[in-house]
């Protein structure tokens, strides 16, 4: 009979597990917890549990001088701070660890990550949609009808569609509706990093594998264990890494850079691209075998031009949501504004529509959005969406960088605000108090915005 490795068994559990001795020092933790808190098991063993877990109840208990016994057989909601400075809600259950003779040797803590959407039921409760993706056009209804089946399957998914159509939202909605919802949803943009960095990010590395590799890193595949790995802009994945990805999809084993030891990772891969992968295969820029491996389930998100009747629904949805968020009493669009918005062709798709709604909410001081509150380019370029081609040719789309459609036509409110802040800071010669006066907001608000937009001061 084959023996089971107890460590592998603990790593396979969908919750974080932490074993501590009766003095409260860490004896062991599983990979799920290591990923959650951002600290390896090697580093944590022997340290006080409260320094490793950093949970509120644990810190308060230690501060009050209470022993671990007070936590025995409890299960309570709590929060902890991770190594990447996030505070996340958790549920921690504590049970007694005893040897075969019944003598207490320590405690086992089970840590459940409670962050993320409240429940799949809430996600699926939108009247016209799936998760946070909404629409009632026939194309979207057909897509929504497929999604529960896709979510329940464990096969790889390929999501295609123009930039701004909501591929990321769809990927996350699929994860949340799947049996892996309790596991992590890890996203990585294959086009955002150079090939060498991307390999290390995806597959991890061993200490000393290259200059600057000062410690072992698990990589995104292992971080997504028992969850979903979302590879966006898969069309930008370098050919060398395409081979490595294909090997993983076949074997489900991750080989970190500089290591010959493989680590099993139970990960569902969801990939997305705005490029025409079929065309890229024909041109030899994407591996055919990987294309077929990813293309097990294919979801094509239609452009907004192809979503008949969805524009008023989305305009209404975003206007209401953003008005509520910003505390503006805006009731809707004036008929003339609505006509202009319905006649526009939205090359940037839903992302552009959302940006327009945000612009309107910021500028409108009345109950209804008037044409004067719309971005000027909507009036300058009155292109009827009925007169435009249903979608751009695939080859043209494939040669276009992500987001290029938006750049020429839309400057989102966030871009405008960031520009105004930069200009004010220049005018105030870097004095934040004066810059805040120029912009017309409080110093603390200015500080928050500077941080939000990553403005260097």
């Amino acid at each position, binding site marked *: 009979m084959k023996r089971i490795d107890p460590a592998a068994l603990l790593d396979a559990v969908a919750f974080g597990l932490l074993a501590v001795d009766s*003095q*409260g*020092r860490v004896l062991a933790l599983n990979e799920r917890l290591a990923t959650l808190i951002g600290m390896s098991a090697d*580093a944590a063993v*022997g*340290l*006080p*549990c*409260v*320094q490793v877990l*950093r949970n*509120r109840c*644990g*810190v*308060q*208990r*230690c*501060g009050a001088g*209470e*022993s*671990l016994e007070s936590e025995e057989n409890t299960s309570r909601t709590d929060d*902890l*701070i*991770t*190594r*990447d*400075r*996030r*505070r996340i809600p958790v549920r921690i259950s504590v049970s007694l660890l005893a040897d075969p003779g019944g003598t207490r040797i320590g405690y086992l803590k089970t840590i459940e990550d409670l962050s993320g959407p409240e429940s799949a039921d809430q996600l699926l409760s939108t009247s016209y949609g799936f998760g946070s993706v909404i629409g009632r056009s026939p194309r979207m209804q057909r897509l929504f009808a497929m999604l529960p089946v896709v979510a329940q399957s464990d096969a790889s998914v390929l999501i295609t569609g123009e930039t701004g159509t909501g591929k990321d939202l769809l990927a996350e909605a699929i994860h949340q509706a799947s049996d892996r919802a309790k596991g992590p949803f890890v996203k990585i943009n294959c086009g955002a990093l150079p090939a060498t960095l991307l390999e290390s990010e995806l597959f991890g590395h061993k200490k000393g594998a290259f200059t600057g590799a000062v410690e072992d890193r698990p990589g995104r595949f292992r971080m997504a264990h028992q969850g979903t790995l979302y590879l966006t802009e898969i069309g930008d994945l370098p050919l060398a890494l395409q081979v490595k990805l294909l090997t993983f999809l076949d074997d489900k084993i991750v080989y970190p850079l500089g290591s010959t030891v493989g680590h099993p990772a139970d990960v569902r891969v969801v990939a997305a691209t705005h490029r025409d992968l079929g065309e890229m295969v024909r041109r030899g820029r994407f591996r055919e075998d990987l294309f077929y491996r990813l293309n097990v389930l294919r979801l094509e998100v239609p452009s907004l031009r192809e979503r008949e009747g969805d524009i008023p629904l989305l305009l209404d949805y975003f206007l209401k949501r953003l008005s509520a968020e910003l505390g503006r009493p805006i009731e809707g669009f004036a008929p003339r504004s609505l006509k202009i918005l319905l006649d526009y062709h939205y090359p940037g798709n839903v992302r552009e529509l959302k940006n327009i709604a945000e612009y309107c909410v910021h500028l409108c001081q009345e109950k209804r959005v008037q044409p004067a509150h719309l971005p000027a380019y909507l009036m300058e370029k009155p292109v009827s969406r009925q007169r435009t081609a249903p979608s751009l040719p695939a080859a043209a789309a494939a040669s276009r960088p992500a987001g290029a459609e938006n750049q020429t036509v839309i400057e989102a409110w966030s871009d405008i605000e960031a520009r105004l802040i930069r200009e004010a800071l220049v005018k105030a010669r870097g004095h934040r108090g004066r810059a805040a006066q120029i912009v017309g907001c409080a110093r603390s608000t200015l*500080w928050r915005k*500077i*941080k939000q937009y990553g403005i260097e001061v």
Partner: protein
Amino acid sequence: MAHLKPIKVLIPLLNDSVAPRFDLATDVVLVRLDAEGVPLERKLLILPQASAERLCQLVIAEAVTIVVCGGIEAEHFDYLTWKQVRVIDNVIGSVGSVLARLKLNQLECGDILREQTDADG
């Protein structure tokens, strides 16, 4: 010691160690070091209640140059960094070992000063 001017260090405490969380610390130690890293003055403060915002105010009011802490939320880390305060976070260890490392100018984010840590629950 490579510090060019005197520095003021704030360390949130849990017993004699760096507190696991900045936002939950009610005891802090303020240490003024000379240019060689030798402690000139040490002040222990007991706060009426734990609050990350109050602690940030204290850091600014006391003109602290370095904060050594365990877990800290990004919002407070960014605020202090923006205020030109160096924040060395994710540190585990006793106050003594932290000050010894600071004197050598060798304390980094994420350092675990293992031999010095207290047993704790």
